[in-house]
């Protein structure tokens, strides 16, 4: 066992290597490792967040779908109701219209009949007068005897 100057040489080498490691090796290596750890942690966190977001979005989408379906059902129901209503209304309107047309027709017929009656009456009056003229063999002054003629028309 001989301790000698080699010890000093080794000590100097040791100090130099430690100094070099401390100055130029450890900080960049450890820094890179720690930065990467942080990056990975961030990435994991982000992916977790994304997965949660996706889940949330899916839940939202299914909810919206359900809502939309419900809405569609309501709309269809409303439409059916409205359809029935429109049909009812149309039928109602048609009936009213028909009644109106019927009434109009009837009143027209009435008016026509009245007019025909009037015409007939007047023709009868003329006939009566001409008949009476023939009977009397003389002309009756239509204006002078208008009152009698009118009375006659009234009676017919």
């Amino acid at each position, binding site marked *: *066992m*001989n*301790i*000698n*100057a*080699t*010890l*000093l*040489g*080794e*000590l100097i*080498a*040791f*100090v*130099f*290597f*430690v100094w*070099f*490691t*401390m100055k*130029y*090796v*450890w900080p*960049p*290596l*450890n*820094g*890179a*490792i720690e*930065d*990467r750890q942080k*990056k990975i942690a961030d990435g994991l966190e982000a992916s977790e967040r994304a997965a949660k977001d996706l889940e949330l979005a899916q839940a939202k989408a299914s909810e919206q779908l359900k809502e939309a379906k419900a809405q569609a059902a309501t709309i269809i129901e409303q439409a059916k109701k409205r359809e029935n209503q429109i049909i009812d209304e149309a039928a109602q309107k048609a009936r009213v219209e028909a009644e109106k047309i019927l009434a109009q027709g009837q009143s027209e017929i009435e008016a026509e009949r009245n007019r025909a009656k009037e015409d007939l009456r007047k023709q009868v009056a003329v006939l009566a007068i001409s008949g009476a003229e023939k009977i009397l063999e003389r002309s009756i002054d239509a204006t002078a005897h208008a009152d009698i003629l009118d009375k006659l028309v009234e009676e017919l």
Partner: protein
Amino acid sequence: MAANGEALTTQGYIQHHLTNAAVGEGFWTWHVDTLAWSIALGLVFILSFRSVAKKATLGVPGKFQCFVEMIVEFVSQSVKDTFHGKNALIAPLSLTIFVWVLLMNFMDIIPVDFLPSFAQWVGGLMGYDPHHVYMKVVPTTDLNTTLALALGVFALMIYYSIKIKGFGGFMKELYAHPFNTPWLYWFNFILEVIALIAKPMSLALRLFGNLYAGELIFILIAGLIGIWQLPAHFIWAAFHLLVIPLQAFIFMMLSIVYLSLAHEDH
């Protein structure tokens, strides 16, 4: 190796393998093989890690970057688990100790004769007597290396103890513990100083002892049992593969623990 002549007995072979290539006299002897291998391995460590650190990307890392980051992450986790203060030195120090010691220990796995006989061959070509060309390739089997590491850690322990607790606080830790009565302070002091010095000593000797013993067994297997050394080498190498990272890890872990204790203020 047996071709090297009559001087090469088994004892001589083992002796040869346990001798460093040395330059100088007395204390000023330099183990050039230890220094060269340890510094070369240290450079391999800092340069390879630096090359990764320079182009460390946030994106998908390459395979070598992954490997380096794995080691960094492992050391970082060990430091975080054990050391609870705030000190930018501890983690790089631990990384240096771990990787450097690991690399130096791994030299043990290279078959014991490869590099020494290569050195002998080169030495022979250069005109030296091959019998006196020594090459010990595992720096951690040299007590100088392990002690240098341990003393480095020890110096930091003392420095941070005084920095965090003050000189008085550090002294008080030495004499007012475990018996907190004034007339036993001298006794406490002896105990605590021994305990304090035992820390770097145990650190240095544990690593040295494990690797020296491992190396010695490789040499014994190579030198003593002839052809049976082939399976024996394999078995011992497989076992030694566990010891190598374990010792590097223990050295790092204990350094962190000792420095953590130095930071604790009672």
